[in-house]
């Protein structure tokens, strides 16, 4: 019964989790020609970004991911930044589920109309000035990267 952007985010993640089941693990580390990243990076990036936006930025919780996550999956990183400790595909898929549970626990039922301490405007565009807008941005950002993932999947399975 989605009534706030968090519910939509958790609903669309069910679609995503279903799609990811069809992705062969053999392709997750391949960077398609002309592209910068691979499926493993995109999944890690989405998980990290959403936790940062919905928990840290809103003040509703702490990011519950491994130390080093931002160094592997943050903006401007790429699979070239992966180390022996970077989670593999199976670990990332498990983390997606665990992260959804953390988000639900921390955000569901909270007042999302509360203003952020300061508007979040990374590129001169105000992306969010309330908690709810931060969650809504995360929802769009997840769509963006899952769209890329599905495209990578089509391309690499072809």
């Amino acid at each position, binding site marked *: *019964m*989605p*009534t*706030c*952007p968090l*519910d*939509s*985010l958790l*609903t*669309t993640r069910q*679609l995503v989790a279903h799609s990811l089941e069809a992705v062969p693990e053999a392709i997750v580390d391949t960077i*398609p*020609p*002309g*592209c*910068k990243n691979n499926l493993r990076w995109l999944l890690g990036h989405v998980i990290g970004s959403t936790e940062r936006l919905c928990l840290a930025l809103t003040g509703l919780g702490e990011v519950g991911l491994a130390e080093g996550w931002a160094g592997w999956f943050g903006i401007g990183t790429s699979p070239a930044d992966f180390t022996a400790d970077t989670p593999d595909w199976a670990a990332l898929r498990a983390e997606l589920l665990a992260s959804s549970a953390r988000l639900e626990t921390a955000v569901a039922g909270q007042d*999302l*109309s509360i203003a952020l301490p300061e508007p979040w405007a990374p590129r001169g*565009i*105000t*992306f*969010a*000035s*309330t908690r*709810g*807008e931060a*969650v*809504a*941005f995360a*929802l*769009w*950002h*997840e*769509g*963006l*990267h*899952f*769209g*890329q*993932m*599905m*495209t*990578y999947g*089509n*391309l690499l399975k*072809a």
Partner: protein
Amino acid sequence: MVDRDLQGLLVARRVLAPALDAIDPALANRTPAGFRNNLRWQLGHLITVAETLLLGVAAGRRPAVPEAYRGWFANDTSPADFDAGTPDWPALRHELDASTERLAEVLRELDPAADLAQPLAPRPGLLLATTVAGVVGYALWHEGHHGGRMACYHRLLGGNG
């Protein structure tokens, strides 16, 4: 009632529009190897679905884009369904801005907590939304999804960004 949570789509459009303007229109009709669609289809689809979800499903009105858009850009169509009347890339880019203005107006009027006349359930076992807020949220994700596909297509066609 203005609910700021519903305004995310407008922020997304402010990111999308300049990204589209950076695309060489000559690439819009080229289907990347291994795919069914092209950038022109993706943009038409993005516009059509957002109008259908927000004006149609959420607000209970008729989408303002011409009915023919469904035949060119709905789910399971492809550029093979295009005809002489299908809008070209500049026309779609113009339509995007016009549509964003229509959506901004409707988003100001919607009550996020209102129940839908019918749940949004595109296929059995897939319940996407039962409320206006749920439709708006799904539309936002869908918007991102096709924006992401377009960014990939653009790269695969040799474009930057």
